[in-house]
Structures are given as structure tokens and as C-alpha cells.
């Protein structure tokens, strides 16, 4: 089987598994959790484009998620815009914002880039909290309408599940396409050696800004979907902790791996559900996971799987000899 065929087949299997999942989990509570797995996967896939492909860290991605949510929320709840139009405006304006700050921010590297994105995230978070007239401040913004198509309204978990996963699967497919393409290779080249990429003719500055913008737009879409699904948003969902959580998802899954991003998102979404007893302390588990993965499993789960598979096939070959 060629690489390309394996890629398509793998994706079809994954998509099929997602589409039939609701039939196995009729329980509405689990379905609700799976909706969140969808949103978080969408976010992790978006961040993976920047962090996993191009190797550029962002500790402020919750801000783009929040911008999407708040622009959609405010336009629909307070100004009765059509939700789809609001979603489009949210995605475009977040993209424009990311494009503009992308140039100065992505000139920075490593620790400085981390600090700058973090600073940006916190500024946005403060604005969500302090512009009370617009956003409702810390107590949140209620009354956001569901998305609808004509008479058909996405007003329960099963409908939202399919709505959100349609976006998530699309984003995953796009990422997979990108990975094995001219631009994907250029991005991964930047990750491994920026000077060599430049000398090979890659316009590193522009490409970084492009992928940053794309990542922000997808995050904003996730934000809009979140707002219209929850019908209520508050700043607490878009703070520094959530940015760190997103980075943790990508790291756990394995830098660059699209399915890894899904695994990371799934684990970090499900974990707190299993760790109910820990309640507030789940953040400690993230911290521990982050440290352990970086120290002992630098390729994340995806990398771990790959080595395991390789070992397996090698031992099988040896057995055959």
C-alpha cells in the first residue's frame, strides 16, 4: 500500500468511527463529553499546525478561542446577528488580528516567543473581564442562540456532536494534506533548522505568519462553535491555564501528529471526568503529565506508538529469519 492510500484509508476509518460513536453512547452525559472532545480536538489540531509543524510555541491560543467565542457571542446575543454570519466575522477578524500581531511576535524565538504569546493572551483575557458593558465581564455572557439551518436548530447534544465533528474532521483532513505537501515540508523544515530552511529558499517570516493566522482562524471557529453550543460563555474558559492545557494536549499526542492531537485532546478532556474526586486538582495531573512526557516520551503518544510498532515489526522479521 502506498503512503497516500494508507493516509486516506486511515482517515476514512477514523471518520467512520467518529460518525458511529453516538450510537454506542446513547447516554447523554457521555455524548456531551464527546462534544467537548470534538471542540478540544479542533483546537489541538489548530495549535499543532503552529507548534507541531512549525515548532513555534504559543502560550496564548486560548485568546483566539476566546475572541471567536466572544465576537460570535456578543454579535448574536446582544445585536441579533445571524449566527453563521457572526461566526464568519469572528473568524475573519480574529485572522486579521493574528496576521497583524504575527509579524512582530513571530520574529521572536523560543522563550521570548513563549513570553510574548503569553502576554498577548493575558491582555486579551483582561479585556474580556474588564469590558463589562460588552462582554458581561467575569459573570459571563448568557443568551447566545444555537446555530440553525432554516428550521433545523442545533439545539441538543447529538446535533451538536455532528456539527462540531464535521468541522473537526475537516480541520484534521486539511492538516493531513498539509503535512505531506510543499508548505507542510517547509514548515517542518523551519522546525528542524530555520537557517537551512531559509537558505533553501523558504520565506520563513511569511510562512510563520501564514500558519499562525490559519491556526488562529481555526481556533476562532472552535470558539464560535463553543459559544453557540454552550449558549453561555465567561472569561474563565479562555485564560492562561487553558492555553497551557492546549499545549499539553499537543505535547501528549506528539508534536506534528494530527491523530496525536486528537489523542491528547481526548485524554485531557476525559481525564477530569474520571478524576472527579480530584476536582480542582486536575491541573496538577496536567503538570505532572507534561513533565513526564517531555522527560520520558519526547515523541508523545504518537511517537510511542510508532516505536512500539517498529519494534514489533522488527521482532517479527527476526522471527521469520
Amino acid at each position, binding site marked *: 500500500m502506498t503512503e497516500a492510500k494508507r493516509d486516506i484509508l486511515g482517515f476514512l476509518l477514523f471518520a467512520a468511527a467518529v460518525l458511529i460513536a453516538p450510537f454506542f453512547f446513547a447516554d447523554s452525559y457521555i455524548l456531551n463529553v464527546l462534544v467537548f472532545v470534538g471542540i478540544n480536538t479542533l483546537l489541538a489540531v489548530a495549535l499543532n499546525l503552529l507548534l507541531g509543524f512549525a515548532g513555534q510555541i504559543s502560550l496564548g491560543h486560548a485568546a483566539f478561542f476566546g475572541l471567536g467565542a466572544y465576537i460570535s457571542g456578543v454579535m448574536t446575543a446582544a445585536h441579533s446577528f445571524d449566527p453563521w454570519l457572526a461566526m464568519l466575522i469572528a473568524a475573519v477578524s480574529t485572522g486579521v488580528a493574528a496576521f497583524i500581531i504575527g509579524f512582530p511576535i513571530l520574529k521572536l524565538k523560543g522563550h521570548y516567543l513563549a513570553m510574548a504569546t503569553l502576554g498577548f493572551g493575558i491582555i486579551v483575557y483582561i479585556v474580556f473581564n474588564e469590558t463589562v458593558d460588552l462582554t458581561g465581564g467575569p459573570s459571563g455572557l448568557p443568551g447566545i442562540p444555537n446555530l440553525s439551518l432554516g428550521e433545523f436548530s442545533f439545539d441538543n447534544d447529538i446535533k451538536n456532536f455532528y456539527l462540531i465533528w464535521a468541522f473537526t474532521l475537516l480541520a484534521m483532513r486539511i492538516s493531513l*494534506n498539509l503535512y505531506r*505537501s*510543499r508548505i507542510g515540508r517547509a514548515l517542518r523544515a523551519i*522546525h528542524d533548522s530555520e537557517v*537551512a530552511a*531559509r*537558505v*533553501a*529558499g523558504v520565506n520563513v517570516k511569511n510562512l510563520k505568519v501564514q500558519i499562525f493566522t490559519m491556526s488562529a482562524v481555526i481556533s476562532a471557529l472552535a470558539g464560535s462553535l463553543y459559544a453557540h453550543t454552550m449558549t453561555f460563555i465567561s472569561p474563565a474558559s479562555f485564560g492562561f491555564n487553558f492555553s497551557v492545557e492546549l499545549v499539553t494536549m499537543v505535547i501528549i499526542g506528539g508534536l506534528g501528529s494530527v491523530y496525536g492531537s486528537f489523542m491528547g485532546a481526548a485524554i485531557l478532556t476525559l481525564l477530569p471526568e474520571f478524576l472527579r474526586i480530584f476536582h480542582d486538582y486536575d491541573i496538577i495531573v496536567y503538570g505532572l503529565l507534561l513533565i513526564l512526557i517531555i522527560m520520558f516520551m519526547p515523541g508523545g503518544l504518537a511517537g510511542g506508538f510508532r516505536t512500539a510498532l517498529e519494534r514489533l515489526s522488527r521482532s517479527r522479521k527476526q522471527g521469520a529469519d
Partner: protein
Amino acid sequence: MLEIRGMTKKFGGLIALDDVSMSVGKGSITGIIGPNGAGKTTLFNIVTGLYTRSSGEVYLEGTDVSGYAPENLARLGLVRTFQNVELFGRMTVLENVMVGLHTRSRSGIFSCSLKWPTHIMEEKRIRDEAMQRLEFTGMTGIADIPAGSLPFGMGRRLEIARALAPGPKIMLMDEPAAGLNSRETLDLADLIRKIRDAGTTVVLVEHDMELVMDVCETIVVLNLGRKLAEGAPREIQENPAVIAAYLGEE
């Protein structure tokens, strides 16, 4: 082909290059030698646009390209290899060479994301061309191995293949023989001549005198940032100033 005029580079108080001028003829193999810290790598870094210059100019085929960004110089057909091999370690050997073809392809982020038909066709073309380069440099058979797991000598060779991929006009090589064994060095000499015969002008920074004297037609000697001598290998070997500079280093 390449002309450097009055190149000067200061790092704070240190003058790494002091008014260096030289010119490289089309289709030639030119060597640059000099003791450690002479400024050879710095010269390459400036010519390829990685460092800014303090003063001086660079001309590529008669056009002033001083201060151009590396990616624009690549488009004009100027490529290089690095003293400390710079590979894309997590990508396969083939993918490394395909990045080398970046300037010979144009699919953007949208057509790549959506797998546009033009992108699919271009992808096939790039892949074939990259395979040809691997053949040219004698590396078929390892196309799908991660570049990071190659032995050192192979890594150097891959870097050359990647630089050669776009069919450059001129290629700067920074110590390509460093770390190679004598067998590999001999192969390298053949490869360098083959590259030149295929139409790429070569500039070579190298400490391996045997290699330099063997393949280069002209040699430029740098010492402490200054040009000390320039001439055919024979002349350089007999130049008292050069001998003094190398002996002084011991």
C-alpha cells in the same frame, strides 16, 4: 559569477572580515582556505544573507545583491552547505531534498491544504526530481530513512543533494570534508567535479589541503579577516606569507 568587494564585518570590537575582495569565475571551482577564525564561515554567512555586513558589496552575475535575504538569494540560484551539518532531522532523506526544491515549486497554503490538482501534479514532479538528485549523489535506497538517523558522512552528502536540488548557479560549501574518512573524501572530490561539470560554479571552504589543491583552480587565503593571497594551487603552496600564517598558527 560572484564578486565580493571590500567586505568588512565587525562583531563589536572584533574585526572578522577586513576589506576582503574576490571574484569567482563562472564554471570554476574556487577554494577559500585559512586558519581557524580567519573569517571564512563569516564570509559565507554574509554572502548568503544570514549576517548583515558592516560594509562592502556582493554581486551575483553582475547584479548588486548585498543585503538580500537568504530566501531571495536562493531564488537567484545561490545555495550553500553548512560547516555543522544542518539537516531537517525529523524528515526523511527524500523530503529533505524536496525542501531543496522549494524555489522550483509554487503551491501555496490553500492549494496544499485542499490538495488542489495543480498541487498533486507538482508534488509528483518534485518527488521525481528529488529522486534524480538522490541518484546523482549516490543515495538511492535510503530515501525513506529519517535524515537524523544518517551516519555523519551520509548527512554531509544529503546536505549537498538538498543544495543541488534546484539546479543552482553557484554553490558555497563550508568544510564538506570535515569528519569524513579518506575514502569518503575521495568520493567527495569526484562529486565536486561532477557538480561543476553539470553547470554549477563551486566555492569551497576547506581545511583538507590535499582536497583543495586537488580540485580547486583558484585559491583565496584568508588570515585574521584579511585576504592574504590569491592564485593557483601551486602559487599558494609556495607563497611565503601563506606558509608563515599557517606556521604561525602551530
